[in-house]
């Protein structure tokens, strides 16, 4: 084993030893870091779920193409061909008969529909675009309205824009929260490392005097920060997991009441790994800054 690797392994062992030396303090630090990371993580996950919900829900981000009453099978086939060629996303043809049946089935509408001399409803296509950005939806709607025998194109663009703006606002808030709590994590690690340096002052001084390099002294402290951050990240993943586990059945029940089949998507293994990596990086940063500032007096 190379000297380099042996010294890194020794530094990791030392960091673990320091973490285990004061279990209650370590646990409290991990909890604080975990909670700091939980809020932005949960927020991000909520936004992600809302985005998925908006994409899945009927009527949301869909464009309805109503044909003129005179449109025949040939025109319907042509529009089908255009939709297919344009690769705009998913689409479904709703014949006027089916539309009338649906209207009849609606509460209180049966008598009204029965009194009509003929079916006033047109054939229609319901398109769910692959790209649900408001600008793209508007572009598609404009394009559809120029097609032959298309009488009306309906896109609730105001609703889509509002929802998108809300999501973007939510995203920004989560980002700001993330930055804020990342700063908190760095500060927590900074302070923990400061206390570590104070507690190990004698050892650091002696090590310096007998030939320890800056790297030798700093390495265990960096690993300590990284380890604490990574464990804090895992702690946050656990807290978010518990929260989503409790919320999932309630949200599913609520979605069912609105006729949607929706389940909350919790953290994936990749997300947990990313959370631990983010925690480790921020922990390392806090340790690095603390070491730079507080080890000066041992120079």
């Amino acid at each position: 084993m190379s000297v380099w690797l042996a010294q890194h392994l020794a530094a990791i062992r030392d960091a673990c030893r320091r973490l285990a030396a004061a279990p209650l303090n370590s646990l409290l630090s991990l909890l604080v870091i975990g909670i700091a990371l939980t809020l932005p993580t949960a927020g991000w996950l909520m936004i992600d779920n809302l985005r998925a919900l908006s994409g899945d829900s009927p009527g949301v981000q869909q464009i309805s193409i109503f044909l003129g009453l005179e449109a025949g099978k040939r025109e319907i086939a042509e529009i089908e061909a255009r939709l297919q060629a344009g690769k705009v996303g998913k689409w479904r043809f709703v014949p006027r008969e089916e539309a009338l049946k649906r209207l009849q089935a609606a509460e209180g509408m049966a008598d009204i529909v029965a009194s009509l001399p003929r079916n006033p409803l047109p054939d229609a296509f319901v398109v769910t675009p692959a790209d649900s950005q408001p600008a793209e939806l508007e572009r598609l709607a404009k394009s559809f309205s120029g097609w032959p025998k298309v009488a009306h194109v309906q896109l609730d663009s105001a609703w889509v824009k509002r929802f998108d703006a809300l999501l973007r606002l939510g995203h920004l808030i989560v980002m700001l929260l993330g930055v804020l709590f990342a700063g908190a994590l760095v500060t927590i690690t900074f302070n923990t490392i400061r206390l570590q340096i104070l507690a190990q002052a004698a050892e650091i001084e002696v090590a310096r005097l007998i030939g320890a390099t800056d790297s030798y002294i700093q390495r265990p402290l960096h690993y300590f920060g990284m380890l604490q951050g990574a464990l804090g990240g895992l702690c946050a993943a656990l807290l978010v997991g518990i929260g989503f586990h409790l919320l999932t059945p309630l949200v599913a029940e609520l979605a069912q009441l609105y006729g949607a089949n929706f389940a909350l998507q919790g953290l994936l293994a990749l997300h947990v790994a990313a959370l631990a990596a983010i925690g480790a990086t921020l922990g390392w940063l806090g340790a690095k800054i603390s070491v730079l500032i507080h080890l000066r007096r041992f120079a």
Partner: protein
Amino acid sequence: MITASDVTKRYPEGREALRHVSFEITAGEMVFLTGHSGAGKSTLFKLLAAIERPTSGSIVISGQNLAALSRSAVPYLRRKLGLLFQDRKLLFDRTVLDNVLLPLAIVGHPPRDALRRAQAALAKVGLPNRERTLPIALSGGEQQRLAIARAVVNRPAIILADEPTANLDAASAREILEIFHAFQQVGVTVLIATHDPASLPAQRPRVLRLDHGEMTELPPTSDAAVAGVLA
């Protein structure tokens, strides 16, 4: 091995701790640095250990000019020196063995080899069965032996000892000096700073004397005469 040329050390408040000090110590020599408290011994010790830098003049150790030494090169110089501090600087929350293992860990010795070398160093200074003891449980003389074991475990070519016999009884002080003498016998250069003329060995040592920052070298003579000059 150690050459100091016209070394002056002036502290920011204006106090001159060393004035135009020059001397040369060749490989394998054992030299005593004497002088009253405040004469500049500890300052010279700090300069030789690259803990501080001279205001002017140069110090060359094993061909390395300390004035030209970069900050990152200082640890590598210190690894070549066996440093003994006046306050010993032992780690009291670590065992005797862990204290001796520290310099080996810093250098990156493989654990098994490090253990063997640490045990050998402890045996050499007469502490073979105290590995698991905490330093607080050792006597003053034993603590000094432990400090010596830590200083020599990396087999340095030079030992710099600041007041190694301070606060020790005569018998313990003699034993410590005998350990240094044993290292000198195998070619190690030893510089011992002491304020106590009585701690000089019976054989005729080379003595450098510091007085208010100025150095004079005493002629080789009997320890009684040296003690007389120093008194």
